[in-house]
Structures are given as C-alpha cells and as structure tokens.
C-alpha cells in the first residue's frame, strides 16, 4: 500500500514514454544545458554501459571515447533535462554492466556485436505497419 502511494507520487514526475534502449546500445542523448541565462541543447553520443535502479530513480551511464580520452556521463532517464534518447545502434551483450570496456583500448573498446534478433523484430513491426496501411 505504501509503495503504491509512493509510485503514484513519482508517476506525476515521470515521462510517459521513454525510448526502449538496453545495455550495449549506442545512443544519442539530448541534454539541456544552462550557461548563465542561456539555454542550449547538447548532444552526447556513446555506448550505454550500465542501467541502474528503476522507477523515477532510473539512470544510465553512457561511455564514449573522444580524441583518445574516454568520457562517461550518467543521466537520469526521467529528468526534464534529458529531452531525447535516440537509439543509434542495437548492441548484443551477455552482461548487464559493461565495465570491462574501461580496460579495453583502441578499436576493441567499441567492438560490440549488433543484436540481429532485435533489429529483425523492429523490421517486422515496420513491415506489419506497412502492410496494415
């Protein structure tokens, strides 16, 4: 009962729909950045190496190697500052946390297999939609 009340409170602050991404996917996150009085959108692209917690507390970590320097940023899924999470590439992993990528150097660091099953599924949905039309 208590948990139901807490969920109902958190629901008011949660986004209605969040793009369906998994660990191993390449995503492009659009973040609102405030510099003084100015506001602008910044895009951050990289591999999702961890998804943590659930509900309103859900967060994910994106890793990218930029000019030889690795950058990791953690975002809250339901934060109003995160306006868009776009899946660029669907990766296939056997692990829920890809912290082993931190020890990899060079091209090995970005070598994740594409998840053909999930991509095929997406195609099927698209085909079904086309057929329905």
């Amino acid at each position, binding site marked *: 009962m208590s948990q139901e*009340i*807490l969920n109902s*409170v*958190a629901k008011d602050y949660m986004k209605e729909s969040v793009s369906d991404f998994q660990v191993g996917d390449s995503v492009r996150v659009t973040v609102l950045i*405030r510099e003084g009085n100015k506001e602008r959108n910044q895009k951050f692209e990289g591999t999702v190496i961890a998804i943590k917690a659930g509900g309103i507390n859900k967060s994910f970590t994106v890793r990218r190697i930029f000019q030889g320097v690795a950058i990791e940023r953690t975002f*809250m899924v*339901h934060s109003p*500052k995160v306006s868009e999470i776009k899946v660029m590439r669907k990766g296939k992993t056997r692990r829920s946390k890809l912290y082993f990528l931190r020890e990899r150097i060079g091209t090995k660091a970005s070598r994740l297999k594409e998840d053909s099953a999930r991509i095929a599924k997406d195609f099927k949905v698209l085909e079904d939609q086309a057929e329905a039309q």
Partner: protein
Amino acid sequence: MATNIKDYGLIGKKVGMTQVFDEEGNVVPVTVVQLAENVVTEIKTEARDGYNAVQVGAFKAKDKHLTKADKVRFGKNNVENFRKTKEFRCHEVIEDLKVGDAINATDFFADLKKVDITGISIGKGFQGGVKLHNMGVGRNSHGSKSKRQIGSIGAGTTPGSVKKGKRMPSMMGNRIFTKTKAIVYKYDAEKNLVLIKGPVPGKANTTVYIKANGVRTWNTYNK
C-alpha cells in the same frame, strides 16, 4: 475573534521517501506524508481547563481497541472512536470550531511554506559513547584496554560523585523528535498527501504530527 487555522495542527502517517524533479530539472528528495481525516474531539478553554487547546483525533478505531477511559472520553463528547489524539495548544480562545468538526487540510496548507513535524525517531537500541555521543576511540593494539570505552567520568575523592548529565551509553533513537522548519514541497489535496522536502523522523507507516512553523504557538509534545 477568529481563530487562525495554522494555530493547531494535523495528524498524518509517514508513507516513505521518494524523489521528484523540480522545474529546473533538479532532483528533490521528499518524504510523503498521508494526512488522516482530522476531527476535533475536544476543545479546551482557559476558563475551564487553564489553557486553550484543540484536541484532534485521527484514524478511526473499533470499540474493542480502546481502553475504557478512552471510550468514556469519546462518548462524553459524542464523537467517533479514534486511535490517535493530539492536543495542539492555541493562543486565542477557539470560537469558530466545534467538537466533531473536520479540520480542512487545504486551508491549513494554503500559503504555508514551512512546518514543524514530530514523530518517534527510529530506535537504534542501547549504544555506546562512540556511536551515541561521537566520543573518541582508544588504541586497538599494543595491549590497549580502552578500545571503545567512554574513558574517565570525572575526578576522584573530590567531588566524589559523577556530574549530572554526564554523557554515557544509553538508548539511541526511539524518542520523540521534532524536525523544525521542514519545507512543504507540495500539498496534493486530491490524494490527501503532503510532500515534505528531506527526511522526517520515524519509520514508514508511523504517525506524525504536523504544525505550522513560524506561528506563535506552544510546543506541547516536545520537551
């Protein structure tokens, strides 16, 4: 003389903690308090009782859950049975309130920014001086005989006694505790919930008492 509704308080139940986002997108930790149906069970006046107060009842109870004294008390005022009652002291004589009236929470939380919230803090059992009073610890090795001992408790033959109030190991928590100036983040009239910024004393599903902060009142429950 109209009585200020913010003079007396409300009874509620702590539901638990969660977090929400503010307009700027920052995370705000909040405690959710579910308000009970608060009904006036007794009004005390200076002429009769020596002080002005409103006694508020919440959480309806069956007859079998009450003591005989409580049954007589509620029966005399012709109100329903309640599990919890709380007296809130007021400065002025309460004239616009009758026994059996429900207290309007919407009026109470209108323009109210800060509250004092009382509950029973989480019990941590009998604890030593190190955890309870932040005392220092002794050496762990080299034959040390004072690892987590409280050390000296005073001088010798003179004065020959331990000073009153000397901090010693004792029960920690499980005491009535009031958090003052707690910020009211949001009042949800529809769900009958209040979101209070930060933690609130006590475990989930325990009773809490809410009073307006900054209103000139007595604090009867906090010694």
